[in-house]
């Protein structure tokens, strides 16, 4: 049968846009091909690696397993949208740079977006909650350590806890007073 197309209206990085898309397209396809937002990366195309993460209506989604037609009416953010009009970086982007949380950079766009969602929540996450909130991304370069630092520091700074933020790097060895049975 003939290919099916549909006009999809949505807001991308703060701008209302519309585009005719093939109904078979994933949101990754639409963002990369139709809008040339190439920060959206393809690492597995089955929702395991998190490299294609975008923010849809305030939540992180894997755009590879999200049909483009579902974007209708949604508010979508990609990493390109976090940089200000004059090239100003957001605090979370800057923290990724400052903490050495970027190596090859391929997982970085997705990680930064999920981190942005976390710091935007206004909540103070525990270390374990932070790990869980970031666990939808795989990274082979950093061992996640410096990403953890970047997110935790930015979260604390947003909450006005600058002194605590400065201590994040030196919290090397973790004390576990009690046994932790798996349950």
């Amino acid at each position, binding site marked *: 049968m003939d290919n099916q197309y549909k006009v999809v209206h949505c807001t991308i990085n703060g701008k209302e846009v519309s585009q005719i898309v093939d109904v078979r397209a994933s949101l990754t396809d639409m963002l990369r091909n139709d809008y040339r937002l190439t920060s959206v990366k393809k690492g597995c195309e089955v929702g*395991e690696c998190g490299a294609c993460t975008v923010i849809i209506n305030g939540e992180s989604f894997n755009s590879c397993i999200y049909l483009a037609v579902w974007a209708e009416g949604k508010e979508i953010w990609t990493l390109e949208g976090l*940089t200000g009009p004059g090239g100003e970086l957001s605090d979370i982007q800057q923290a990724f740079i400052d903490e050495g949380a970027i190596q090859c950079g391929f997982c970085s766009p997705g990680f930064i977006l999920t981190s942005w969602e976390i710091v935007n929540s206004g909540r103070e996450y525990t270390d374990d909650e932070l790990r869980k909130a970031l666990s939808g991304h795989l990274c082979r370069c950093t061992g996640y350590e410096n990403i953890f630092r970047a997110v935790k520091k930015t979260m604390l700074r947003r909450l006005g806890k600058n002194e605590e933020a400065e201590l994040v790097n030196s919290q090397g060895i973790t004390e576990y007073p009690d046994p932790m049975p798996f349950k």
Partner: protein
Amino acid sequence: MSNKYIGQAVKRLDARDKAMGRIKYADDLCDKGALIIRVLHSTVANGIVKSIDTTEAEKVPGVVKVFTCFDLKEKHYYPTAGHPWSTDPAHQDIADRLIMTDRPLFYGDDIGAVVAENEVAASQALSILEKAVVYEELPFVLEAQEAMEEDAPLLHEKYPNNVLGHSEVHMGNVEEAIKEPGLTKVEGWYETQPVQHCHIENFICYAYGEGDRTVIVSSTQIPHIVRRVVGQATGMDWGKFRIIKPYIGGGFGNKQDVLYEPLTAWISIQLGGRLVKLDVPREETFICNRIRHAIKYHITSWMRPDGSFAARTFKAWCNNGAYSSHCHAIAAKGLNAFPQLYPCDNFDGETWTVYTNRSVAGAMRGYGMPQASYAFECHTEDCARAMGMDPLEFRRQNLMPVGYYHAFSKNELYSDSFNQCFDKGAEIIGYFDKVEKYKNQTGDIRRGIAVSTYWYNTAVYPIALETSSCRIVMNQDGSVQFQLGETEIGQGADTVAAQMIADTVGIPLDMVHPMSCQDTDITPFGTGVYASRGTYTLGFSIKQTSMLLKEKILEAAHQFTRMPVFNLDIVDGMIIRKTDGRELMTIGELALSKLYTTEGSQHLTAESTYQIKSNAYSFGCCFAEVEVDIPMCRARLLNIVNVHDCGQVINPMLAEGQVHGGQSMGIGYALSEKLMWDTKTGKPLNNNLLDYKMSSFMDHPRLNAAFVENYEPTSAYGTKGLGEPPVCPVAPAIRNAIGQATGIYINELPLSPHTLFREFTEAGLIDDSFAE
């Protein structure tokens, strides 16, 4: 030269672009109109392709062309390893690969390809084509030692018993030495599993015609080597190919092999130079690129009552998969490393690299040493326990002593690196207190702490050529661009190179610009990055080239300042008179004047090659603290500390990043990762990121990296290897810690619940009466 930038935690130069999402990787650069290639892979583990009926696949709308192994009219066998070429045929890599083959040797071997206008058409055609292949199936073999048996299927006719490489090392006389009375013998089998690199960007390349040549843009670590191999694979002149390497999303050694560049280039040529793209799906990355060798070891040690070694033997069988890739190099590296770590006068060692019908093993971060370190350091722990000695003291007593010299590599241990690393790590993690605290535990939940160590060779001298080339070009404002054959693959090579140039030339770092993307038409020749040599090797050509440039700058400065060159220097972008420190002119004024002068206008540039004829020992250790939930058969890593002596640390932030990455890979290696094949069909079972358990954010504790900086005297900037070493000691440290916690010392990887369940059951640690 003074170190203004060297030793500083300079932020990586590409970090801002990466944080903005505007760095371009191969797929971001490729035109949307590219034709899509999908590879037809063998669905038998060993066989002969009798026929492939392409009729139905060609009918799929959007399909442009279907190629099969039978379309390859000229068979040019080629090697794939990212090794420097040798003009001596005896030292060349084994050429056993074809662009497509009618004699598939593993499940996933390349037997054809589909080219289509879009990915849906390509995948539809591919699934039709998969059913249109007629095979003659042959028996297959998946394990190295089985492949060496007389009746095993033979993969390559030139290699009887499937042995593609064998080497031996003998020292002293083991047979005599073990007659010494009072010796304690410790013997063990140690087995490591196959794993994959899992860089988040899959391998991708695209190719198109330009003039009478083919341009290939590839996610590779080794652009200049790719050009040579594509030439060899197609039977064409090497200069007919131009390779461009953009930013890449990780490599870890997988992209130190030539992967699908020959096929992609060949297809483009068949299609008159049309733009074709091959973006390898993750599932194929796992099994059709390269993997880490599974190696099985047998080690025996005889110890005197004082804990010294009287004699040792070592045997290793290295499962290489279906094609040679890195040939015997990985097995040989382990064998050569063993007698150097804990020297012993009497030693017999032997190792085999064996073809099997599994995915091809190649280079992967650590190059055989994560496997070898596991075997070495499990065994060392077992020896210490057998002698009733403290494992750390036992190591200190037997390790390579200060001043140790290795005649072949000319490596020397210049400093007390091992003990310094141990001392630092033990203090950070609180080793001695915890060792005491964790003794004699009972109960379901127990803790343990342990250490392991390694040595690592920084570069590849004298086994292979070591050469590095650098070009530095000065602009009118005194800023410079530089180019290197050493590629930026995420490790930060561009940044450390810029730091070195800034300090050596004497200009501010923001005036030094890397030309990050290699292009074989433009970039001076270099073999790329592999081993742990980048910072070491590029240092030589950078220092030499920077000094050449500085010489030219000072000569030019003489023209404008009338001062003798020997009285001039460049400090912080300023030409100064050394005698009184007066600032004479800025480097920008100088560059501008020299270019536009009507008397002797000159473009200030320098280029040179340095051939390195040295190598350097790199050292370190890992301390791991674990908690084991015995009934649940789970080990959890609580704390990990790696300490490395990589010489002068050029950039502490980037160095720390290398350690974290290695630790992470080591944690997965120790606890969860294993690529598996169905023994009945030879089919891979878990070639995807869900079933292959690379560690997630929730599987890691905080990672700790520390350094001991003993300046390496052979090195241009005092550095030695760090890229690979951090992964090496992790798995044995975790294994030894689980052993301390439970009394169960396990000699295989990974230490997953499957393994712990079996071992705990056998040891009677868990009551399994009801779980038959």
